[in-house]
């Protein structure tokens, strides 16, 4: 009998981007959440990251990144004015573990309706970060 060989399923990374409100130190903050899935992401000693590669060796960096409790997602939080296009990369410490296939554009970010957000919300963008420094 002929055996029908099949290919092992290789990691197929996917990214979902959306605006979310996240409470930090008792204040609501508006951020972009980029959620990468596709394999098991361990909890490691170096911090995880999700970034947008916008040019050769040029990255738009996250504010912070978490690994989901079931280790199936790595979730980066970025300012809302993320670059209009680029490639999503992720990893730990100084090591890029993977790249999400295809080009990321801001049109894929599910935006929140501003008029429905709380009045005391902190809009986290480059201006906000500049003021924080």
């Amino acid at each position, binding site marked *: 009998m002929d055996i029908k060989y099949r290919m092992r399923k290789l990691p197929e990374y996917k990214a979902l981007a959306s605006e979310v409100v996240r409470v*930090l130190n008792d204040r609501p903050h508006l951020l972009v959440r980029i959620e990468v899935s596709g394999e098991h992401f*361990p909890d490691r*000693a170096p*911090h995880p990251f999700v970034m947008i590669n916008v040019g050769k060796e040029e990255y738009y960096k996250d*504010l*912070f990144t978490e690994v989901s409790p079931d280790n199936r997602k790595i979730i980066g939080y970025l300012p809302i004015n993320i670059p209009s296009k680029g490639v999503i990369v992720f990893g730990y410490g100084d090591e890029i573990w993977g790249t999400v296939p295809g080009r990321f554009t801001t049109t894929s970010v599910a935006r929140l309706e501003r008029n429905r957000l709380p009045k005391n919300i902190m809009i986290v963008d480059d201006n906000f970060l500049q003021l924080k420094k």
Partner: protein
Amino acid sequence: MITFRIKGIVKEEETGLPLPGLFVKSYDKDLLFDDLLGSAITDTEGIFDIICESSDFRDLFEKKPDIYFKVFKCDRTTLIHDTKRAVRWNQDRISEHEILIPWIEIHAHTETEVLLTGDNGEARNEFSTGESLTIQVKGLRPGYAHDFSLSMDGKALFTSTFISNRYGDIEPTVLWPQMGLDDPNSKARFTPEEATVRWDGASYSLNISMGRETISTSTFKINDAVHTPIVIVSEKDGRLLNGFEVGTHPLMLTMRNLPFGGDIRIYMVPRQYDWQVGNPFQPVLFSNGEPAVLEVSLREGGVQQTIEFARAEMLMPGAYDFIVRPVRYGFEEDELLAVLPNDVIGSRRVTGLVIREAFWLAKPVLGGCVNRIPISGHSISGSPYFRYADTFTVGEDVWAGLDPGIVDPNNISKMCALYVIESKDAAAWSNNSLTHLPVLGGNANTIKRKLQAGCMNADKSLVWPNAMLPGEYDIVADFGNNTSDASLFVPDHAYNTPLDIIDGYFVAGFRIVKDPGTMQDFNHAGNWNYIQTDVDAMPGLSGTVTVQDEAGQYHSSTVPTIINRQLRLKANVFFPADAPGITDPASISSNQPNYPLIVIIHGNGHDYTSYDFLLEHFAKNGFIAASIDVRYFNGSFDSHGMGGQGRAEALFPHLNVINTKFGSNVQNNIGIMGHSRGGDAVVKAARINQQQALGHNINAVIALAPTDQYGTEVLGGAWSKPYFVLYGSRDGDITGGIWVSNYTVPQTGFAHYDRANGSRKSMCFVYRATHNGFITDNHDAPWDGDAIADMEPVTTQQAFTKAYMNAFYRWHLKNESQWTGMFAGEWTPGSVSSTGAIFYIQYHDTTTKIVDEFEGAVNWQASTIGGTVDHAGTLPVNPGEGKMSAAVIAGLDQKSPHDTQGMKIKWNNTGDKLVFTIPPAHKNVSAYSVLSFRVTQKTDSADNPSNQTQNFRVALKDGSNNERAVRVSPFYVIPFPDHRPNHAHSKSAMLTVRIPLKSYRIVCAGLNKVDLDDIASLTFLFSEKTTGEIEIDNIEFSN
């Protein structure tokens, strides 16, 4: 029902040696009929333990038992001793007994069994010349020296002396190596064919005696018809040549009686003390880096044939064996690097070849007469069957193996005596007499061995069974009257240079100590685990607290955003206990009024319950020990991801809980250990405790595979603490990368160690250890390209964790200074050395006189103490000084993990040197005990030969021009850096070399002493290897 416990130990009366394997029955003495209370078999330490109930003996008049014993052989029927005339009356619920049995009573029931075996391990009474005659004896008096006298047709050949082990056995030990290939009674050496003519047909007799008592006599013959395969290193004419100095001879192999001809392959491999089918091996490398393997075609028929295996210039110093394999065209199995059934090993239990270094150049002190080599070791059941060791646990057996890499050219002795002596200081060595330990029978009972001709090697042999006396010892190989007639050998009870060889002298040869990896002061550990609801129930405490933490990573900003995190207080706590099953801290052992406290902070993704094995070990060593949960509560569950500060702040509410629960039983004397992110956190915790005046006495800090990613914390200044870092060379998580923007050196424990200051610090770097293997598993190894199977087993890594952490806390929380040497790299506990793992220690003491630490303005020609530095034009390039890591900013080495400045030195001639002058204001170093510096081979340097250790000398010269140059290699190995599959993360990792200043003062024939009150210069002499490139730091005199 009331239970009674009868504990005891059975020993031989005369020697005090424990008697294992005996059947002990305990009785209650009665007026009419005695009651049997119970029975037990004595364990390896001679100990028995019998539990009985009061109903077993109780009657109208009796409430406590009146105990006596009967002791039987292991057959349970042969009575050898009873204590009926020494009844112990009215014994309490727990009673302890010592039963001493005179040797005569044991011996009356013991038969001596003698086995003679040859190279194939089978008991025989006929052997071929060239085989090594091995003895195995059972039924001797335990722990006593026995003489083995061998004669041929009534003529004495030689008498060896071996000591029986605690069971009365002599384990397989070579009595006559390479029978007949040399004449025990003259200088003659033979070819295998000549030996056959010389020795065949005679009758040989082996007489075993103890004192004047003959115990056994055996006979055997040498018969060429036995046809045992022989493979020896020889002269070109086929005569035995077991050893020679490097570069002086080609390597010739002579073979006879091989059961095969045609195509064969010969592997030159590191020497082992036995070989069994299945043992893995790796061929050694020739000087050109090629594997030492030769394929040749042999004539059939087993005739004697001699071939050249390698030219003289191809050979490197070392001890080797040879594996000869018939190879068949295309057979995959023949490529296996493991011993196959058809392989012939020319030297199964003896040494195939020793290539020695040049005698005078290889001396520990150049031009002096002391020969120092390792001798003491452990006999182990698997490959390589013997391993050198410098530390033994109380009650262990001490073995000796002799593979001398330096031998006096005038040494013609066929025998040597092995003395075990107490270590002596420099002054005491002005008298060179030897006193074999009285517990081993004194000088009349030294071990005496027939040596292999020409190389002075000897198989492993027991020298001290059941070593019970803690202390520091040396082993001396005394060649006595240096006679080529073994039958006339007489030891002279003196250490004579240059003839005799010593394991010790400058530093102790070995130690008998308790092993911090296995010792315990308490038989039991209590266990109290708490969660937040338990804490809520404690008055004044809350089970959920808020801590501040860094949100995200430093790479987005040099100043992190601080956020509040909720923490639910959970911990596992272990404590000393007097009985099993204790869970209430109030029932802590009353042996001490209070105990020091150890708290563990785990890393990201770790489970705080994984540390129970370590907590239990700490508890049995007299600590209250807790592992706290530092996951944060996200409103629904406890989540991973806490940063460094949150982990640090989590410590303090837990201290409140533990202090409340244990009250006066817990000392304000705290050790903290952090793993991974916890390793960063413990440094922060020490700082926060001091800066916020929290009042906790944190007295010892350990970092296990720490991160260095939360703001370059420094354990120093006002919060300086004794510090120990444990890190693996194959850490797959903290690999050596740099990912935080303001960091300029690899973010590992090396940087933490380098920055720590103000207290003693030590770091242990373990080759092939991982991030989590010290606690749980090696699953992080593949994250950086390593195969889990190539890593050290978790049991090995846990041996490091238990031994070094327990010793460190005992040192600093209990003021037990006897552990200092472990952290200075001077000795290794048996539970660690027995694993065979490779590791290197850095150590820094607080009392030092710095010569050069290379900090501040870069100027290689000026030292820190204001002296000059000069190579007198000898080095090919000037030394480089500056930041060691060149990973981000300009520095000395892309692969350096260090956060410090240092010096890079390259040489290409054995006459090269680098001289540091010592200014007059600093000339007196007599208050210090060692000359210390850190050093590493530079990774990827073409000047460091692949996979070889590096070596050089360090000379001190006084104001009267007395100078001694001490070799590094007798004290420390400067290893070739561990090469990772992801080579970007291989490291030029420094270790600390500490040369005892005693070496410059001790009696060393041919050399004057150096005046330590008047040191004028310190010189690195690159005389031992033709090329090299190293990095050094922290040159100083120290303690």
